[in-house]
């Protein structure tokens, strides 16, 4: 069965270079709706689970090909449409919101920092429920303290910071002006990492965490 796999949306301009091949080496196509450009491919569906990692890297390659040049709104890898008609209907229904977000985020990238229990941390204390909860509370406070210190450290770079608790740590997303990624890295690198925690920075990424809710979960007809 074939489906339409959507990669990303962006404000289209003739000078933009676009990737030729996408997931599974199938051609990448451009759909335009007004000023909105959308990249897509016709793919065999469902994906072969054995090839999932490769597909993820190829998908990432297409999105970042455009993202290196300008702001994009990425779709999630498993978002597919029944056919071109459904995809076109989606674009018609949502292009204005996409363009609004692209305009708002046009000069920004998303930088990230994850703080997580260090591999060398002491064993979890399971001697009693109380001890376990006390240890968890200490770890949580450390993460919260780090997140606050990071907010302070990047305040001169961004006022848009989001913090999300994940199963394996705390994720901090910062909206940074494109070109100031190294300033971000420098600012974060001087924030002390609490004992028993580790830090990992990454980016730049498309500013997916800062999309409006209507764009993150748009109305759609015919999507599968």
């Amino acid at each position, binding site marked *: 069965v074939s489906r339409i796999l959507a990669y990303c949306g962006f404000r289209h301009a003739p000078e933009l270079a676009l990737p030729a091949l996408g997931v599974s080496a199938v051609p990448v196509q451009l759909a335009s709706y007004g000023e909105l450009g959308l990249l897509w491919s016709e793919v065999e569906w469902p994906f072969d689970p054995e090839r999932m990692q490769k597909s993820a*890297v190829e*998908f990432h390659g297409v999105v970042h090909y455009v993202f290196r040049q300008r702001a994009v*709104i990425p779709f999630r890898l498993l*978002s597919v449409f029944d056919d071109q008609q459904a995809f076109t209907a989606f674009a018609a229904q949502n292009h204005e919101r996409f363009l609004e977000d692209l305009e708002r985020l046009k000069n920004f990238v998303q930088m990230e920092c994850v703080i997580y229990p260090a*591999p060398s941390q002491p064993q979890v204390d399971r001697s009693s429920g109380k001890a376990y909860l006390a240890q968890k509370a200490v770890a949580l406070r450390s993460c919260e303290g780090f997140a606050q210190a990071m907010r302070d450290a990047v305040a001169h770079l961004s006022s848009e910071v989001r913090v999300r608790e994940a*199963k394996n740590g705390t994720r901090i997303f910062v909206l940074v002006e494109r070109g100031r990624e190294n300033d971000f890295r420098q600012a974060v690198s001087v924030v002390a990492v609490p004992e028993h925690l580790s830090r990992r920075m990454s980016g730049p990424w498309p500013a997916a965490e800062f999309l409006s809710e209507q764009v993150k979960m748009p109305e759609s007809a015919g999507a599968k």
Partner: protein
Amino acid sequence: MQNDFETVGVLGGGGDEVSLLEILDHVLNSGVVIHGSLVISLAGVDLVYLGLNVVLTSVETALSNLQIEEKRRQK
């Protein structure tokens, strides 16, 4: 066997290398979600989010393995 945590030569704009784990996390968990995109059918029955669960399980496993790998490297 493929190393799940190899650093791949795909790049953020600054030419940084990004780990496969981070790529998986972003392409699966960040960005536009098409409503109903993860409904799949098996024997005529719609199984909502089954595909997503399978993938998320893999990512969770990958994260655990990453921590084990880091511990091993530190020894």
